C-alpha cells in the first residue's frame, strides 16, 4: 500500500512535472514568489518587490509557453487579457516588453536587475535563479 501510494505520488508528481521556471538574475534581492504576486507583476499592478523595481518580460504572443503562463499563472484567457490591456492602454499603461526567444529572455534577465522572465527549466543556468516553477 505504501509502495502503491509512493508510486502514485511519484507518477502524479511526474504528471505535474515542473517544466518551466520563472527566473530572475541570480543576485536579485528576493527569493521565492507567490503565484498571485506573479500575476500582479505580469498585469503590471505590482511594480516592486521590496525596493526592487520589477520588469516583467513576456515571450512573443504566439509562444506556447506564454499561453500556458497566461492560463496558469495569470489565470486569464487571451481574450480577457486582451481586453484588459486595451483598457490599460486607455489608462496610459503599456503591456510588458517581449523577447523573441528563451535565450534572449535568459540574457536579458542576466543583464537587467529586476527583470523577470519565464523559460523552460532546462535552460536555467548559473546566471539566473528560479523564483517560481510551474
Amino acid at each position, binding site marked *: 500500500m505504501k509502495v502503491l501510494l509512493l508510486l502514485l505520488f511519484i507518477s502524479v508528481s511526474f504528471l505535474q512535472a515542473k517544466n518551466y521556471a520563472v527566473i530572475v538574475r541570480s543576485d536579485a534581492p528576493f527569493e521565492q514568489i507567490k503565484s498571485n504576486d506573479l500575476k500582479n507583476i505580469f498585469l503590471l499592478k505590482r511594480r516592486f518587490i521590496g525596493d526592487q*523595481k520589477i*520588469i516583467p518580460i513576456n515571450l512573443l504572443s504566439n509562444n506556447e509557453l506564454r499561453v500556458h503562463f497566461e492560463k496558469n499563472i495569470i489565470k486569464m484567457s487571451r481574450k480577457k487579457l486582451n481586453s484588459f490591456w486595451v483598457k490599460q492602454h486607455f489608462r496610459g499603461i503599456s503591456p510588458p*516588453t517581449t*523577447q*523573441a*526567444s528563451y*535565450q*534572449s*529572455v535568459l*540574457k*536579458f534577465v542576466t*543583464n*537587467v536587475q*529586476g*527583470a523577470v522572465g519565464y523559460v523552460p527549466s532546462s535552460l536555467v543556468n548559473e546566471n539566473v535563479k528560479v523564483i517560481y516553477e510551474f
Partner: protein
Amino acid sequence: MSFKFKTIIFFLLISLIPYALTMLMFGSSFRDEQKNNVEKELKTQLNMTLSRINQNLQTLQNDLKFMAKSEVMADIYTSDLDRRISRLLLNKKNDLNIIGNFYLVDQEQTIIASSDFSYISKKFNFNSTYSTKVLSPFDNKPIANLHVYYDLKNLTKYFSNSENRHYYVVDKNGKNLFQPKEYKESILIQSTLSSIDNVKIVLIEDKAHAYRLLKKYQFWFVVTLFIGALFIILMAIYFASNLIKPLKHLSSTANKITQTQDYSVQVPIERSDEIGHLGKSFNTMIKGINGAMGEVKDLNEEIEATQREVVFTMGAIGESRSKETGNHVKRVAEYSKLLALYYGLSEEEAEMLKQASPMHDIGKVAIPDAILNKPGKFTDEEFEYMKKHAKLGFDMLNSSNRPLLKAAAIVAHEHHEKYNGKGYPRGLRANEIHIYGRITAVADVFDALGSDRCYKKAWDDEKIFDLFRKERGEHFDPKLVDIFFKHLDDFLEIRNKFKDLI
C-alpha cells in the same frame, strides 16, 4: 589731300573712336557679366545639389537618433540574440538605399548589431560618419553607440553629370573621388559639405562648353562692331560727298566757264542753306562777268573793225599815188585770204593776211612820182630805186609791235621775192620766203596782169594762165599755183565781184 578725304578722315576719327571705345567697354563688361553668370549658374547648381545632399544627410542623422530611441534597443541587453535590432538596421539601410552600414556598438567596442550581419560580434575599430548614444530605457544611462558609415559613393546619386559638366568629391585627404574625366581647360566651383567634415563637393565644367554662349556672343559682337564701323564709314563718305558735291559742282562749273569762255552757264541751286547761297552768289557773279564780257567783246569788235578800216584805208592811201584802183587792194586781199585758207593756214592767219595785204606797197610812198608813174620802161637805176619800196615798206611797218602791222611788214618786205630766189630785196628762195610773201606775190601778179595799167593793157586770161604755168616753181610757189588752178573759179568770182568800175 582733298577736302572730301580730310572730311571723311575727320568724321571717322570723331565717330569711330568713341564708338569703338564704347563698344569695347560695353563688350568687355558684357563679357565679364556673362562670365559671372556662368559662374553664378554653376554656383546655383552646386548649391542646389548640396542642399539636397545635406537634407538627406540630415534625414539620415535624424533617423539614426530616432532608431537609437526605439523600443527594440532594449535588446542590447540580450546582445540582440534574436537579431531584432540588426533586422531593423538592415531595413533602414534598404529603405534609405545607401551604400554603407549601421552598427550598434557596446561600451567595449563590440558590434552587437549591424545592417551587415557579418560584422556582428566583431570589434568596431573603424570610422563612422555619424554616431549617437543609445540610452538604457531603465536608467537613461548610455549603454551603446549607434553608428552609421555613409560611403561617399552615395553622393554620386545626387550628381547629374553630363558630357561637359560633372561633379566630384574631394575627401578629407584631398583626394579626388568619382571624377569621370578631366577637361583640358575647365572652370570649377567647390564647396564643403556642411554635414560631413572635411568633404568637399566640386562642380567642374569644361571651359569651352561653359563659355560657348559667350563665344557665340563674342562672334556676333565682333560682327556687329564691324558692321557698325562700316556703317559709320559709309555714312562718313556719304556725308562728306554730300557736303563736297555742291562745292565740286561749283568748281567744275568755274573750270568749264574758264575753258569754254561761256559765261552764260549757271550753277543749279539745290539747297537753301549756306552752300546754296554760295551757288547763288556764284551765279550772280558769273552773270555779271557775262555782261561785262559781252561789253568787252563789243568794244573789242569795234576796235578790230576800226583797225581793219584804218589798215585798209592806209593801204588804199598808199595805192592812191600809183594810180591803182582801190579795188585792186581789195581783190588782192581777197585772193590772199583764199589762197591762205586753201594752203592750210587758219582762219585767223588768213584773215590777218587779208587785213595786212593792202599795205604791201606802202613803201611806194617813198618813191618819187616821176619814177612811180613813169609810163614807159624803167631804167636800171630807176628799177633799183623802185625795188627799194619793199624794204622801205618793211621799215615803216616793222617798228610797230602789233601783229597785224608785223604781218603787213612781212608782206611788204617779201611780196616781190621769187620762189627761185631771183626776187628782191633779199633774194630769198622757196620756203625762206614767208608764206604771206609767197601768197601775196601770186595774188598781186594775178591781179596786176588782169588789170589795165598805165604802162600796159590787161592780159587775156589764157596768157595769164600760161605765165603762171611757166612761172610755177620759178616765180611762184608750185603749191600755190596748183591751188590757184584748182580753185580758179573762186578767184575769178572774186575778180568779178570786185571789178573795177570805170
